[in-house]
């Protein structure tokens, strides 16, 4: 019976967790400029969102930024996780392991202000590329973790050894065996990295230079300077994007469960 009480409680807590999002989604269809009372159903905030040139520009910037950051983080993550899992153990290997986790543990504001003061001091321009590179750094733990876990689960390279016994070169073994096996984790890690960059506000807030407006920054200025009813619709789009990205990620790594060798 205790289980039933707990189930009810958990359901309630999930209600608490999802209530705010539900409210925002509901109000995004409300035919009133203010979030006060229900005035009827409308899709006009979405349509004005999709006709807003500035917002579409922000969306393009955010996507480009996330794609570049995810690409960099994935390549770096793949190289380093390969070395950490497949190479002979060496001194300092665990040190690398914890170094790669540091960006994950630091409070976001620390990363933001340190990058700001460092970039300004070393005259690195605050432009699209410096922001993309910073996002790649923040996303690195996610790709490294994901790929490393997968490589570790692949039983220490016995399959590659078998392939090489059958005459494959190192590259062939890597390219035909390791890479395809690690592929779900690589792509899953890349998706997580993409999401991290896509949703990042704090770092962008501190170091995005002029003219670089990402979606979260747009949401922030709408919240701060107000008077824009499209904000609910925009928030919903961000949530939807997150859900889709996470679902894709789950789909990929969920496959891992069944496709395990």
């Amino acid at each position: 019976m205790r289980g039933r009480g707990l189930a009810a409680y958990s359901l309630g807590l999930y209600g608490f967790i999802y209530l705010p999002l539900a409210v925002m989604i509901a109000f995004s269809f409300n035919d009133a400029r203010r979030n006060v009372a229900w005035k009827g159903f409308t899709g006009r905030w979405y349509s004005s969102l999709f006709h807003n040139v500035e917002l579409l520009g922000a969306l393009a910037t955010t996507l480009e930024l996330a794609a570049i950051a995810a690409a960099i983080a994935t390549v770096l993550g793949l190289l380093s996780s390969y070395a950490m899992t497949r190479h002979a153990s060496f001194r300092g290997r665990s040190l690398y392991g914890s170094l790669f986790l540091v960006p994950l543990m630091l409070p976001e504001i620390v990363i933001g202000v340190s990058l700001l003061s460092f970039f300004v001091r070393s005259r690195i321009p605050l432009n699209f590329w410096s922001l993309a590179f910073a996002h790649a750094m923040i996303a690195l733990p996610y790709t490294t973790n994901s790929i490393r876990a997968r490589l570790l689960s692949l039983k220490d390279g016995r399959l590659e050894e078998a392939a090489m016994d059958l005459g494959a070169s190192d590259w062939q073994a890597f390219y035909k065996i390791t890479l395809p096996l690690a592929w779900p984790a690589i792509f899953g890690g890349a998706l997580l990295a993409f999401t991290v960059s896509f949703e990042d506000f704090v770092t962008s807030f501190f170091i995005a230079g002029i003219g670089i407006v990402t979606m979260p920054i747009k949401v922030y200025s709408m919240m701060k300077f107000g008077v824009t009813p499209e904000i609910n619709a925009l928030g919903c789009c961000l949530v939807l994007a997150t859900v889709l990205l996470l679902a894709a990620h789950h789909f990929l790594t969920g496959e891992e469960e069944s496709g395990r060798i």
Partner: protein
Amino acid sequence: MTRRYSRRDFIGLALSAAAFPWLACKRSAERVVNFFNWSLYISPKTLPRFTERTGIKVNYEEIADDEEMFAKLRAGVGGYDVVVASDYMIPRMRELGLIDPYPAGALKNLRHIDPKFRATPYDPDNSYTVPYMWGTTGIGYNRGKVKSPPQSWWALWDESYRGKISMLDNARDNIATALLLKGYPETTTDPKAFADISEMLSRQRPLVKQYSSGTYIDNLITGEISLAMSWSGDVLQAARENPQLDYVIPKEGSYLWVDNLLLVRGGPNREEALQLIDFLLEPEVNAEITSFVRYASPNASARKLLDPGLLSDPRVFPPASVMKRLRIHALLPPETTQLWNQTWSDIKLG
């Protein structure tokens, strides 16, 4: 020998290698100008029109406060071409080499500016500034939520509005108003005066719901707050959303300020910057901005194009009787500015 590297590998590699320069090119081909302005300070039509006419893209960034803009420029966060700043900020920016003088004869629409706004104390030889808009600091309020329309600054100290008051989040408006209310000159450095106004502002703190220069507008509209120290045009714009909102210049008097378009030193797009500024001075463009933002225009030709109702609105263009009660901010030496900022940050810390 078997083929070890398939063609697909190389195509993939080549494609990804090509993507980077493509993205890089894409971002540098167009003509742009980087414009840093206050929030609620331009009409949504203005910049698209400028882009349509000139083909120059405007990167537009908003701030809620002068000090924020100053901090960014001062820190060397580069890339800005045009910024808007208040009168009192000009000598400071000039001294620190943050702005450049206008090249003579670069702006053909400068002739529209009312001579009253030229040769000002903060820019006697008209070299660094072009006035953009002017306005006043006063009280914005919700008619449905106050006992009676406030007439005095002391309404913001009224115990019955506890938790319904918002104050601007900057040293300039708070300290200057407090000094004015207590009858001290704005340039004072007397510790007694500062102790006095600190006490007065700290006393107000428990009544204040939020110190804000941005979100207060939304909070006024939604009824979250009833009274707010505010800037004239912000409230009048908000009144379009909520007709209950009104704005008053308190009877004790207040400040009027003139915001200026400035050329940032080292701005990468000087030519485009001058084009943008000249565009903003065009009477028709300027009139459109004024009608939207509800701040007063220093542009004499633009005023002729305004709706008579707006022109006679005492909240936008105060009549002579109110003008007598308005003053402009004094130009303070750095030490005094620091004293102001320190005092203000101490009050906020509580």
